[in-house]
């Protein structure tokens, strides 16, 4: 007889350490508690519950799609929210931990072509204002189930471990969150959304890197270099995730030691991370060696050659990340001991964390005005940040005292229309024809190519004047290390069609140009590879 109970699967206040661990490296599948008899003939395989949970993660996305037709704003009804959401998830995931992460503006820019295509399909003109509106709605939907940021709550039924009872469980999940980075705020997928996305592509997240690297070796041996490039990119993504997990753990330890389980979970995680980093480095060295051998047999100008070079560089990057991971893991116990010593005598607040709505704002509104003023002014200085006092100087004081008195005229005054004169921009250093040629050259790129190759083709072509090569180098270098725009608080890119990366150890030596070589990767290719 089946019995039905209810349980809520809320999030643990402590850091979840086991989500991404390979089972053989310390992470037990959740709920894997069946005895050997059950394992031989399980009434309900625990893996089914896990699969069901993964499947249910798609529900918010499907709900988005169902909501399209019911959208009150008719101007937005033609947008396929699920497609836009999946594209957004893909873009965020593919850039996480690899630099140039998706922030608000960048994600909007990447989603705009898809929204334009949907406009075209519906015979509507492209409208940036409408795109912005749809984009904001999409983000709101992905952030949480409602405006108060509650997580999505999905009920499902699972069979108990003994196979005799049914339990109704509630799964809480977030899809999208925003995270502070050194340069600003970027989007990150929750672990649940990452799992959903990767598993929906048939990949097992737990040992994705092991699988990716085995695949690269296999594809290299088979001569399927294009496919091996994609596997190598995936492997690099996985190594970045693992490093970030350890980094997060140490950061939380520095903030508050109590939030991390250093008694059991962390030592297990560090141990598995250490083994993972060591094993991966050995395999990655073999892949790099294998790639080097292939390079000796390939035509340096050919596509295969470039693919293998990219694989080698990507795997070298993985190896570097794993070396850093290894060092980080080895230093981790010191961080723990140091923080334990530092935080041991830190006074702990005995007060519970307040609910700012019901416990602060609400009683404040019910207070007499004078008390409410006192309370807000007493508390405000703790949240308004430091306000360094302005230093008085004698010179400023004299200037202030000697300034002529300003007479205020009361009444109204008519304002003349401003006499605006259009001032032309200063002439650009490079004529439009040169800039157009370079842009066309870069837009025509179908595959990643070193700058040295593109430059060589330009330099040796008598149809191109030297200014074309000069401008090509300048825009690529500018995009490799873009300027920082103080006003917008973001970097300024010159090119929109290519991503510029460094080619480690490769030199550029073409005509008068000399230095380290760069790799030009068509941006469209980066996006395609991640779908």
């Amino acid at each position: 007889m089946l019995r039905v109970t209810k349980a809520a699967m809320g999030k643990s206040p402590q850091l979840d350490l086991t989500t991404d661990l390979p089972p053989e490296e310390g992470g037990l599948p959740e709920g894997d508690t069946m005895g050997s008899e059950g394992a031989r003939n399980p009434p309900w395989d625990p893996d089914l519950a896990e699969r069901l949970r993964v499947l249910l993660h798609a529900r918010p996305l499907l709900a988005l799609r169902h909501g399209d037709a019911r959208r009150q704003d008719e101007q937005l009804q033609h947008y396929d929210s699920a497609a836009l959401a999946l594209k957004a998830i893909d873009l965020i995931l593919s850039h996480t931990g690899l630099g140039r992460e998706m922030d608000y503006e960048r994600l909007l820019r990447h989603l705009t072509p898809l929204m334009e295509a949907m406009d075209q399909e519906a015979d509507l003109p492209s409208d940036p204002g409408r795109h912005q509106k749809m984009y904001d709605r999409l983000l709101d939907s992905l952030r949480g189930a409602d405006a108060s940021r509650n997580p999505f709550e999905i009920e499902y039924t699972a069979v108990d471990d003994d196979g005799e009872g049914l339990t109704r469980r509630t799964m809480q999940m977030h899809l999208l969150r925003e995270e502070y980075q050194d340069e600003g705020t970027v989007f990150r997928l929750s672990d649940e959304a990452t799992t959903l996305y990767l598993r929906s592509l048939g990949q097992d997240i737990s040992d994705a890197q092991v699988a990716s690297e085995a695949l690269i070796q296999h594809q290299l041996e088979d001569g399927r270099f294009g496919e091996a490039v994609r596997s190598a990119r995936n492997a690099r993504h996985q190594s970045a995730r693992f490093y970030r997990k350890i980094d997060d753990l140490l950061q939380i330890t520095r903030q508050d030691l109590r939030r991390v389980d250093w008694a059991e979970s962390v030592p297990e995680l560090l141990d598995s991370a250490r083994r993972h980093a060591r094993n991966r480095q050995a395999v990655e060295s073999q892949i790099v060696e294998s790639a080097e051998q292939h390079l000796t047999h390939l035509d340096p100008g050919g596509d295969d050659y470039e693919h293998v070079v990219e694989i080698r560089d990507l795997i070298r990057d993985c190896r570097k990340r794993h070396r850093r991971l290894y060092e980080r893991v080895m230093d981790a116990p010191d961080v723990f001991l140091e923080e334990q010593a530092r935080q041991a005598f830190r006074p702990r607040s005995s007060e519970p964390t307040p609910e700012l709505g019901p416990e602060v704002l609400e009683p404040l509104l019910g207070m007499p005005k004078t008390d409410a003023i006192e309370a807000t002014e007493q508390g405000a200085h703790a949240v308004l940040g430091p306000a360094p006092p302005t230093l008085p100087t004698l010179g400023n004081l004299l200037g202030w005292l000697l300034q002529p008195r300003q007479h205020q005229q009361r009444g109204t005054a008519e304002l003349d229309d401003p006499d605006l004169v259009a001032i032309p921009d200063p002439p650009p250093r490079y004529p439009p024809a040169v800039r157009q040629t370079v842009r066309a050259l870069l837009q025509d790129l179908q595959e990643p190519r070193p700058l040295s190759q593109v430059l060589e083709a330009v330099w040796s072509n008598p149809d191109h004047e030297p200014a074309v090569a000069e401008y090509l180098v300048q825009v690529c270098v500018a995009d490799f290390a873009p300027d920082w725009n103080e006003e917008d608080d973001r970097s300024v890119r010159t090119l929109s069609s290519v991503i510029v990366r460094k080619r480690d150890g490769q030199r550029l030596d073409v005509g008068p140009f000399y230095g380290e070589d760069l790799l030009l990767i068509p941006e469209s290719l980066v996006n395609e590879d991640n779908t």
Partner: protein
Amino acid sequence: MSPLESKSLEQQASELLHWALDPRTKPVQHEEYRRLVDRYIEDRDFRRVVDDFATGQKLDIVDVSSKGVALVPEPGSRFASKPGNYRRSGSADKRLLDGLALYGILATFYPRASDLEGPRDEAPRPVTVEEVDQNIRRLAEQWEERAREENRADPTVEELEQGLEEAWRVYHNRVETGKAETNGSSPRATRSYIEHAFEYLRQNGLIQRVGRSSPPRFQPTWALNAVIQTKGAARVYRATREAMSGSSGSGPSVASSPSS
């Protein structure tokens, strides 16, 4: 030897505090700031000197990371913000509405206790002026409903003169928005106080505007998030409780708040 390394430990410590006093500046923008932050994180002796300097200045360093240094001035610190920094002068009503707008913003960014306990690097979702106003107004309406149910009389003239009118009445009696005779929103409307609060926080590097959409959306910066999660929320709560315990007049106690 680089210029930074040629300086004494104390000089480097004071320079780190100099950078930290401006939350708009990020280590990623200045090599020297970045190196000082790195040193603070990695070098225990340097950290101790910086912490001592800060304590002497009545500043509490609540978090340091590659995103910056989050400081909270202790009560009585010369670096503590004063009402005059926020608004040059104002009547009691203005001061009250400024405070409610600021607290309303915080309560909208962090509605639940769990939002204050989340990962330090996770940014709360962006909010608009309208959302904050609706949040405060909803609570004010709850108070109004309760007063009606209890047949509570309107404040007397004496009570008004003594400032014993309940805070919700002041907020409730102001329009949300509205146009003045000149262009722009009415400066008396509640939303203009929230706009002022957002602008003050933005100029001080504590919030950022997200995108260019209209109406504008704002989100806390890392510095505000660190301050609120570590000390800010607790201090705000404590100040409110102290005011409640020493409440001077007819204001309802916590137990009688409309949602309790």
